[in-house]
């Protein structure tokens, strides 16, 4: 299961995701394709990287972050181009431009990361050689065409073209052939870098993501969780960002909740409108945020790693499947029971089970 599958969960995961200041559309797509982390080591490692980014955000000034963000806006999804390159196709001008653009961006971002000791956390492959291939004049500009410097003959033909515009069509045809040869040659030289280009693209998406998560932690007042060693989850003063924001707009405050629960069933009961559903929503949200490596909306949190998260809110009718509210709910609970019988580590948050069921007597 990937973030894409969980994002619409009624717990409000999308709200937190949408509040990330991601700079590149590619990062967003890459994140949605991220599988949920299911081991403590993985999660701990991702938080370790994020911690370094939080330190980075605290160290540098806002203009520096803005510049980095502005650079990351230039990150484009060029997977198709990289794939073509990997298959040894001859790249055209637009594709070569994309490769050069990515390489220049990667070198720039890598330098910034290194300057702040973040190069260990996320390594961006060195693409200086790619730039050298695509920048024969050493201009270091993110622009591209088949430069005159690649071939003396091309240079001469183009000079003639400028002198005799009337012969342009005929000379262009000659140029086109030479240009194609140059592109073939360039593509060949670039083939060995296909993997590094792909890695660089992902590395920059990771940087974009971590930067956005770090800024979100500061902005929303989130905390770094610890990973529970005894499968018991403990939350101090947890809150739901979406509900908190909605209340703040009406000049009211969210009442934070502290809660501990383990492997045994925990029953939450209380008066109507006491916030039971919000507690379940918040717990579900925190569990997802934890397993996708976000900051947690609480003062402190010690969270158990799970294989799967179930959130049964009880009012999901499934019209396409022809199920009533009650049937849909029973199906969900059935899935919970099956998963628990299979001995998988799950957390199931069930809100008022069978509320739509009516006594026949």
């Amino acid at each position, binding site marked *: 299961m990937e973030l894409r599958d969980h994002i619409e969960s009624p717990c409000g995961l999308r709200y937190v995701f949408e509040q990330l200041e991601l700079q590149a559309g590619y990062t967003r797509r890459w994140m949605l394709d991220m599988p949920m982390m299911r081991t403590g080591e993985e999660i701990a490692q991702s938080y370790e990287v994020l911690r370094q980014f939080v330190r980075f955000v605290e160290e540098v000034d806002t203009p520096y972050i803005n510049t980095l963000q502005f650079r990351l806006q230039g990150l*484009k999804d060029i997977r198709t181009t990289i794939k073509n390159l990997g298959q040894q196709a001859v790249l055209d*001008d637009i594709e070569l431009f994309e490769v050069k653009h990515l390489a220049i961006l990667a070198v720039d971002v890598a330098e910034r990361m290194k300057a702040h000791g973040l190069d260990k956390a996320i390594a961006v492959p060195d693409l200086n050689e790619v730039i050298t291939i695509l920048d024969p004049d050493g201009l270091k500009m993110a*622009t591209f065409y088949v430069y005159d410097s690649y071939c003396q003959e091309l240079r001469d033909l*183009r000079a003639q073209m*400028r002198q005799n515009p009337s012969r342009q069509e005929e000379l262009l045809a000659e*140029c086109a052939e030479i240009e194609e040869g140059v592109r073939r040659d360039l593509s060949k030289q670039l083939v060995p870098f296909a993997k590094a280009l792909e890695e660089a693209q992902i590395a920059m998406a990771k940087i974009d993501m971590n930067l956005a998560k770090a800024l979100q932690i500061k902005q929303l007042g989130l905390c770094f969780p610890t990973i529970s060693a005894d499968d018991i989850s403990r939350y101090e003063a947890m809150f739901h960002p979406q509900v908190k924001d909605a209340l703040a707009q009406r000049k009211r405050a969210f009442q934070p909740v502290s809660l501990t629960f383990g492997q045994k069933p925990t029953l939450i009961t209380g008066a109507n409108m006491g916030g039971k559903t919000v507690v379940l929503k918040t717990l579900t949200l925190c569990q997802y945020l934890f397993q996708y490596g976000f900051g947690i909306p609480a003062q402190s949190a010690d969270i158990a790693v799970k294989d799967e998260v179930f959130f049964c809110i009880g009012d999901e009718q499934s019209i396409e499947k022809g199920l009533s509210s009650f049937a849909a709910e029973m199906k969900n609970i059935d899935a919970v029971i099956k998963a628990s019988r299979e001995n998988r580590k799950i957390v199931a948050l069930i809100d008022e089970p069978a509320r739509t069921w009516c006594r026949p007597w």
Partner: protein
Amino acid sequence: MTFIDDILNYDSLSIVGLQKNTGKTVSLNYVLDRLPVERKRIAVTSIGIDGETTDQVTRTQKPEIYLRQGMYFGTSEMHYRQKRIVSELIDVSDENTSLGRVVTAKALTGGKILLSGPSSSSGLKRWMKDMHRVGIELVIIDGALSRMSLASPAVSQSMILATGAAYSTNMNTLVQQTAFVVDLIKIPLTEEANLNLLMPIEKGVWYIDDEGALHELSHISSLSQDFRFEGMDRCKILYVAGALVDGFLEKVRKNPKLKTCELVVRDFTKIFVSPQQYRLFLKAGGVIHVLQKSKLIAVTVNPTSPLGVTLDSDTLCGRLSKAIQLPVYDLMKNSADEPSASPVWN
């Protein structure tokens, strides 16, 4: 002094034709040929496909767009691959069109090019913003009246209007209809205080009372047949954010309560009323203003229609010029820098 110098006072120019074959591309080439590319960074794009050799609809010959060395241009990936000039890519955007992404490049030699830029007005605005950010001083948009919203004052500061026999082969009709569009383009801006108040409102019908307070009418659309003006005795300014249509204008004209109120629309591209209704409204003492206005730099004519009818250029230019009180240019006939006819001021 020609209208070329006028263009340099603005950072964007759109060229719109009242109809296909009214000489829009000729006007564009005329402008591109004369702009001082050595001292001004200029970028060109189109909101449709432009520069193809034969018209896709009428199958008539079309002039191609000729770029000069040093100009920047925005076109689709597909047309970039078909280019017949040497050019340097400076950007590949995320803006998608049916012909691929929009790419931007700088012409390193002069030559012919097919233009097919952003196809939505928000996409166009983003592209123009990017251009200004990289230091382009003048953006030229090749537009179409059928998609005038893309050439609206919300997007470009100045415009050139191309008209001609393709729009109507009856000279009277042609002059009247063109004069009507010119009248709409020239509708003056409303007062600054109203501007700030109304600019953020993008839908609905609103009014400002004599104390300067803003109210929304409960009816959402001005298109609705049974639109009623209720409880607005003290209306000073009536603002239509969406389209202004005949039925609505007629109701405003016939409503005694609204006799002294000023009607405000977003810009002239939002006005969809017939010339008759518009004139009746003005005659009854109605006042209409806009929130955004672009400067009409010139009107150009093509006296030949694709059906083969040719109107007399001098008569057409003369009559049109008199009707709109602006110089009119027949660029096909005169490559000279003089207008074909200047208005007789009286």
